């Protein structure tokens, strides 16, 4: 979830009032936001935004907008949106898209802004918006990347095209020498971070002006001249490129609304495509592409458990910044240009809920009767645990992930059927536990200082490969137990197995086994109704040595699922 930093001073001035920290904590839920920290010295609030579908909230102005609307202190019209019905004046501001880019990164949206010189805080906020939008919403620049430029330094029309990676070069931001596009993705820090997005393409995205002066190599890096925005700049050009057109248009609209709210005039730009898009070949951005969405008021009331009349719903939505009107049993909503999170009418219902305020909904118990019940496995596990406790064992609980060293090497096994994690964070958590035995031995290894005898058990899950299942794996409920004492050995383990089966009222038989975890001739496989249901024996001194254990130990492991399957 994105976290942003906002200057208190700016946030309060945009909203139109100031707040104490505890007042903020009260009001932030209207934006599904939480106060994460306060830097009093710098006057900075750290805020966590929980809704990943509301990128419009990830900036100072965006957050201020939601709070201001909710508080009734703020309501702005955004006059710069073009739409299917009306094109706003774009002057000479044109971006020409070349067919060569279609297969690589087909979409671009752009606009220019004019205003009083941008402040340090304002610049930081734009950079933050850009980062959050492109990272969290734009899949780490893969589907959305954004660039900001000094519009005084170039000439329209701007060109967006595919460029030859080797034959095209310019001086990127953060460097003082000319590099070709291929060099940038291998040598420049930003190239190393984002170059992979385009590295496999025959041509790389490239933006220049009418005179071939370079703006940027999206989604990687701006040019060092036109693309180096500074405090005090009055005229800026903003473009966004990407692969997902609606998300791209939305992001452009969000940035435009943010800059408009902070005092800039928004100057639309016409994009000319040589190929068809969802919104035609010529589109003036910022563009309002959202469709009205309707909700059945009865459905809304059913979900909320309320009897609201349409006017009350409209009022609630208005408080969330949403215009709506009803006709019959249907409420139609005009989605704000900076939002696109209404996938289903249920999304309107949530905004009605928030606009009403949580206090207005009184809790009520569901009236239908249902029977509560534990699973069979849980009930059986409890029986087994009772027996183990009666036998003097301490119940343990262990992690289900571990290392190949513990699960394979120290156990003297080959581990072919063990489930390995492809992307382990560390080698300590690289395998899924195939057996409880290594967990128990690890306990023994770290507990030599605990008074003997040691008698420990766990009833828990293990998983390993199993070709019989579609997934190729199986998860099972196992009982494992270990005893360690100066006189411990096979006979004691055998007695315990006998007691467990007696009190579970199940018959078992034993068969010899050559398992390297145990001393040869001192281990046995347990069979129940003809199925292998476990193994036990005296742990091989070589295994004990691997674990650094100096106390004779016995181990037992029983597959509870098999015992339960055919149980009585």
């Amino acid at each position, binding site marked *: *979830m994105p976290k942003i930093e906002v200057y208190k001073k700016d946030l309060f001035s945009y909203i139109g009032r100031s707040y104490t920290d505890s007042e903020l904590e009260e009001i932030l839920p209207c934006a599904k936001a939480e106060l994460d920290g306060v830097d009093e010295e710098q006057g900075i609030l750290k805020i966590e935004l929980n*809704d*990943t*579908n509301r990128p419009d909230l990830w900036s100072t102005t965006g957050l201020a907008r939601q709070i201001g609307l909710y508080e009734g202190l703020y309501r702005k019209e955004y006059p710069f949106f073009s739409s299917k019905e009306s094109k706003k004046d774009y002057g000479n501001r044109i971006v020409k898209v070349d067919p060569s880019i279609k297969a690589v990164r087909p979409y671009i949206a752009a606009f220019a802004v004019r205003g009083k010189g941008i402040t340090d805080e304002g610049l930081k906020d734009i950079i933050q918006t850009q980062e959050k939008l492109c990272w969290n*919403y734009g*899949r780490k620049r893969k589907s959305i990347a954004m660039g900001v430029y000094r519009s005084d330094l170039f000439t329209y029309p701007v060109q967006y095209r595919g460029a030859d990676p080797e034959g095209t070069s310019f001086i990127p931001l953060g460097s003082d020498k000319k590099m070709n596009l291929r060099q940038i993705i291998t040598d420049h820090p930003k190239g190393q971070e984002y170059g992979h997005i385009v590295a496999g393409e025959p041509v790389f995205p490239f933006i220049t002006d009418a005179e071939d002066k370079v703006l940027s190599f999206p989604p990687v890096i701006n040019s060092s001249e036109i693309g180096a925005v500074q405090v005090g700049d009055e005229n800026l050009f903003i473009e966004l490129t990407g692969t997902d057109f609606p998300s791209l248009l939305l992001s452009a609209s969000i940035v435009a609304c943010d800059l408009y709210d902070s005092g800039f005039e928004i100057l639309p730009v016409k994009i000319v495509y040589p190929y068809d898009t969802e919104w035609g070949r010529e589109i003036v951005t910022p563009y309002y592409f959202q469709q009205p969405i309707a909700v059945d008021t009865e459905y809304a009331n*059913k*979900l*909320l*458990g309320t009897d609201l009349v349409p006017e009350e719903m409209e009022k609630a939505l208005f408080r969330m910044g949403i215009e709506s009107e009803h006709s019959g049993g249907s409420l139609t909503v005009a989605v704000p240009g900076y939002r696109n999170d209404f*996938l*289903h009418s*249920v*999304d309107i219902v*949530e905004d009605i*809920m*928030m606009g009403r305020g*949580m206090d207005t*909904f*009184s*809790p*009520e*118990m*569901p*009236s*239908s*009767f*249902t029977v*509560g*019940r*534990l*699973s069979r496995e849980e009930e059986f596990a409890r029986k087994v645990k009772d027996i183990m*406790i009666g036998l003097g064992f*301490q*119940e*343990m*609980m262990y*992690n*289900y*992930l571990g290392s190949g060293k513990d699960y394979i090497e120290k156990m003297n096994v080959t581990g072919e059927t063990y*489930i390995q*994690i492809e*992307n382990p*964070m560390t080698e*300590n*958590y690289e395998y899924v536990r195939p057996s409880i035995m290594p967990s128990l031995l*690890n*306990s*023994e290894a770290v*507990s030599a200082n*605990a*008074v003997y*005898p040691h008698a420990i058990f766990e009833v828990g*899950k293990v998983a390993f*490969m199993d070709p019989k299942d*579609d*997934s190729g*794996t*199986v*998860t099972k409920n196992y009982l494992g137990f270990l005893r360690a004492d100066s006189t411990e050995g096979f006979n004691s383990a055998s007695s315990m197995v006998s007691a467990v089966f007696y009190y579970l009222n199940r018959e078992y038989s034993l068969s010899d086994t050559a398992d390297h975890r145990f001393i040869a001739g001192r281990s046995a496989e347990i069979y129940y109704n003809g199925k292998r249901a476990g193994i036990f024996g005296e742990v091989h001194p070589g295994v004990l040595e691997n674990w650094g254990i100096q106390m004779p130990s016995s181990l037992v492991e029983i597959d509870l699922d098999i015992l339960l399957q055919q149980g009585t």
Partner: protein
Amino acid sequence: MEFDVKSLHPLEIKLLRHAGEGDEITADRIMTELSFKLGQCNQAFSWLSAKGYLKESKRISRILYEITELGSEYREKGVPEARIVHYLKTAGPKKMPEIASALGLQNKDVGSAFGQLSKENVLKMDTEKNVTVVSDKLPERTAILTGLLEKASLDKFLDDDLLSEAERAVLKDNSKKRGASASPFRVIERDDVQYVLTEEGKAVKKYLLEQGVTGEEIGAVTPEMLASGSWKGKSFREYNINTPPNRVLLGRRNPYGEYLQWVKDKLSSLGFEEFDGPLVETEFWNGDALFMPQFHSARDIHDVYYIKNPSHTKKIEQPYLDQVAATHENGWKTGSRGWGYTFDHEFTRRQVMRSQGTVLSAKQLHKAKVPGKYFGVARCFRYDQVDATHGADFYQTEGIVLGEDVNLRTLLGLLKMFAEEIAGAEEVKYVPGYFPFTEPSIEVHIKHPVLGWFELGGSGIFRPEVTKAMGIDVPVLAWGLGIDRMALMHLGLNDLRELFTPDIESVRLRRKNENA
């Protein structure tokens, strides 16, 4: 006098009863008169002195001589000088090595004995190096040494104070302080302490006599006593109930497991039925079925562990795969416009470690009863740096409620019930939340008597994109509770890693805080 006789050991009782008021009490006396062993004597002295019933009246430093193994051998076979003279008298003149081997002595011992005796004109050596007897009158010290060996074997110790000058002179040459195997005597320096009864000691003694406490009371009752009836007519020693007891090792539950069991019992008593599932899941159930778009940043919330092999499941159950895929792409028949991208059928079969308990809820949907309430306590796995607040694997408690009467207000009612029944909350607050699979979404914050305000859990009404794709038309509440924090508090812990500690002793000693 009020006195607790249980504070006295039978040895102490016997000693106090025996000691006369003016007596000088010594270890030797007590050992003789009460048949105590020296160790018992010293224990009784030390306990009684610590209690102030005895005090030291005199301390005498003594030098004692104790016979060694070599000394015992001398006593049995004779001292070497006497043996040499005796041997030569019978066997005639012999060379020194012959003497040594005949008598089983060291050459050097024979040499030094000869040196001494030749000076005293008892032995001499002829020109052929044969030793011969000159006079059979052995020096006095040989007899003295023989006498001392005899005496020491009877009395165990020779007291330096009681020895004559001549005896002392002999012992000087025949004793060593430490490691005295090469000498017939070992020197022991010892302080002999004399004690007298203090006033308190006298009072206790009087009390013991009055009460008839003898120190001969029965301690452990034996089967033999019971069989023979020998206990009859005797009294039983009273024990000190405050003596620290011995440690008992017992079988017991893991307190965290007990807590989870309590939660499960609570939920089933509230009408919830338990469900469970495998640890290895598919991207389909772990995310797609929950309407989390395959490439959307919402999936950043749940960074997952991938399975290396088998990397993909063979197939996903139909018609759910097609319905979910269509819902993602265009909303299918759910009333949604969908996410508007091409669903990846390869990715959806990718196998992962279950990263959220909600998976179980999603899988339960198509086989659930309506109305129905379900819960599961599911082990989940996240790609997280392990620290005090993040585990590589951990439990999540999750569930669903299906029914025609399910709505936001019944959701709030359910959350209130959890807050009160499971968390013992004093106050409850509801805050709008965000989860990709619920709309509306609610977080419940509670004021706990110990922990103060914190987030108890997340919840919401499953999006129609989730339920309809599973063939469910009634609203479904989904909820999850963060019970680990309460578990830590119940156990007096503050580190999640402690919940799965392998350390036997710390689990053995762990207790639940009933008041928290």
